[in-house]
């Protein structure tokens, strides 16, 4: 479907070029190209990027790539030109594969030749901006990652709080949300709803699957009684089974949503930001606020915290513990599904995205204190910021290693976490 659309745009551009008088006039020489960010199998057109063609320091023409990433600059005569890509106009998340290769110095155009040239673009943080700007960029990306981790980790932390189970299959709830939304939004087999519409049923189904898990698996196991270690092994078996099931259905390659895939940056007080990052941060903050109010102000939320604090005491004071546990599973899984969709919008969707996220979730939850919702939120933002901002100094490949480092240091100096209580840690 996606390829078809690109092909249509290409064909339309081609026809327009052939018919337009300007094109006919310049039938001789031009320099053109299509900007595509190539990430493994995936090619995404990059719109809104400025290309400048110069000859001996003299500007010959300027073009901005269109929605298909196409750009064309007519040139007056055969000769050698310099073609420069203006790096600052690259959207967030797209960068030159080889930094510094933004100028092609010797582009030889022969008589009546339409010269096609290519810039190698790939995923990455765009360089060519000042250190402070890059640092602020990273802070925003870190806040976004923190917000996403927070959505995903509240469920893990609360489920641990009310049942004592560290659910290793929680990462798969994240993937499931993203994949369900992909099916409803971008899959040719699905209804192809806009992402905003598709996200709602995806979150609801994710929440329902959490409830079904509790009713069909974890509840019976707890009543059976099954020990903590057996439950952990079962959860890791479930995680492995679900992950590979998703792999069979969704396949291995990463895919993006269609909506919001590539966006033009906003400039605000010297900080450039991608609108979707801001939207993700604000929307997550709103959801987290609602969850916080729910836990503090409503009866059910208070009951949830009471069960997490002391199950027996809560039960003896008349709280229906099983109903509270079921609600926690539904809420936690729904939040994880939402987090997965946000993550899919900001990166790509892949069958093991949740498993990779799980490592960050663990770091966040242990940092904040296992079993607490607010600890999970605080820990998530700290981990998100640390992980992203660290790339300012260290290589991108070590992001997750830093999260593990924080986790281990925290276990050594304050194992109950920032907001956790000491009795829990054993």
């Amino acid at each position, binding site marked *: 479907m996606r390829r078809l659309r690109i092909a249509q745009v290409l064909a339309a551009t081609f026809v327009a070029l052939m018919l337009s008088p300007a094109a006919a006039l310049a039938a001789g020489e031009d320099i053109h190209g299509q900007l595509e960010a190539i990430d493994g199998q995936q090619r995404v057109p990059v719109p809104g990027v400025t290309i400048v063609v110069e000859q001996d320091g003299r500007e010959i023409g300027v073009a901005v790539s269109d929605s298909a990433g196409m750009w064309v600059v007519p040139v007056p005569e055969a000769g050698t030109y310099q073609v420069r890509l203006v790096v600052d106009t690259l959207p967030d998340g797209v960068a030159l594969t080889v930094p510094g290769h933004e100028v092609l110095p010797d582009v030889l155009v022969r008589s009546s030749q339409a010269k096609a040239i290519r810039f190698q673009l790939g995923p990455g943080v765009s360089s060519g901006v000042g250190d402070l700007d890059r640092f602020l960029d990273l802070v925003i990306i870190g806040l976004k990652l923190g917000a996403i981790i927070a959505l995903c980790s509240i469920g893990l932390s609360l489920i641990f709080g009310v049942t004592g189970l560290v659910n290793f299959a929680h990462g798969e709830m994240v993937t499931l949300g993203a994949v369900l939304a992909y099916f409803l939004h971008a899959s040719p087999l699905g209804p192809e709803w806009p992402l905003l519409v598709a996200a709602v049923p995806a979150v609801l189904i994710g929440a329902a699957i959490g409830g079904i898990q509790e009713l069909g698996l974890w509840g019976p196991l707890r009543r059976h009684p099954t020990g903590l270690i057996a439950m952990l092994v079962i959860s890791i078996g479930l995680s492995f089974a679900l992950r590979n099931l998703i792999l069979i259905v969704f396949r291995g390659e990463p895919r993006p949503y269609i909506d919001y895939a590539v966006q033009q940056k906003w400039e605000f007080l010297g900080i450039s930001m991608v609108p979707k990052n801001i939207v993700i941060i604000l929307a997550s903050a709103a959801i987290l606020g609602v969850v916080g109010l729910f836990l503090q102000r409503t009866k059910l939320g208070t009951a949830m915290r009471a069960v997490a604090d002391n199950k027996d005491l809560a039960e003896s004071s008349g709280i229906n513990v099983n109903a509270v546990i079921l609600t926690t599973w539904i809420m936690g899984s729904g939040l994880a599904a939402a987090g997965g969709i946000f993550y899919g919008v900001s990166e790509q969707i892949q069958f093991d995205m949740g498993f990779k996220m799980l490592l960050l979730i663990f770091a966040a939850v242990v940092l904040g204190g296992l079993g607490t919702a607010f600890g999970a939120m605080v820990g998530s933002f700290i981990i998100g910021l640390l992980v992203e901002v660290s790339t300012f100094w260290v290589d991108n490949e070590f992001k997750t290693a830093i999260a593990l480092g924080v986790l281990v240091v925290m276990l050594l100096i304050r194992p109950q976490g920032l907001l956790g209580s000491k009795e*829990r840690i054993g």
Partner: protein
Amino acid sequence: MDFGGILVDALRAAVGPVAAAYALSAIGLNLQFGYTGLLNFGHVGFMLAGAYGAAITVEFGGSLWLGIPIGIAAGVLLGLLLGFPTLRLRADYLAIVTISAAEILRLIVRSTWAHPVTRSVFGIRAFADEFFDMNPLDVGASYGWGDFRFSGRQLWVILVSWSVVAIAGFLLYRMIRSPWGRVIRAIREDEYAARSLGKHVFSYKLQSLMLGGGLAGLSGILLAIEQQSVFPDTWQPKITFFLYVIVILGGAGTIIGPIVGAIVFQFLFFFFDRFMTSAQLEGWFGNVLDATGAAQVKLVLVGVGLMTLMAVRPEGIFGHREELLIDER
């Protein structure tokens, strides 16, 4: 469908060098999980440490016979590093740290930063020539009956690997029956009781984790020798899950369990793999499953199998249900 061929393939896998390496690794995991009650969800990380320890030593001019103890030491050291911050805490903290550490170790050895040492994704090749030079068998000949055959090279690896498994199994048998073994089983049953008898629980747990890590390191070396190469992406988290299925299938907390578990697991895994592949080729699944999908179904079954075993028959083939709760021997 050629059932005979599938059966022979599965049998070859069941006694093959990979099964032996899994058996050795599972003996280490069984010491940690089955006897001490430690949840190590990153066992593959210890195997990686062993394999890279040996391969890097050879790569930098050392002998393989120096590399093997270095690899084992790397596994032991990783156990110390991961156990120290977590073993005083609840069981799940060790699980969280090990699962993360194993995946991050894989990311680090495959990073371009580590390339000068680990050769990143290009891997370290042909590091075990010294081992194959010792082969007394005829490399060109093939040994076996009918289709059930191994080359002289394969048979040499198989003989050595299973001998190592037998030695490790015997040593573990003696250790479990020693006073040391009684203490670690006591810790599994009731940590507080063991502590009240004046046993230093933390130290015993750490020893068990390090010893299991060393065994995993050696098994990683065996796996790498068999392939004559070390690549980062060999050490996927899925190997840890295979090992859990092996330990629980055979019977956690038994000596013979992990060994039989590895043989049965490899047999079933390859039987099902070949079966699904041929069934897909013959068009049993229509357009529902393509070749890749059919090959991945076995992984889903590993996960489902692990859940079912743990929920329905946690004692496995040879285990005793009481052994998981109270030790009566």
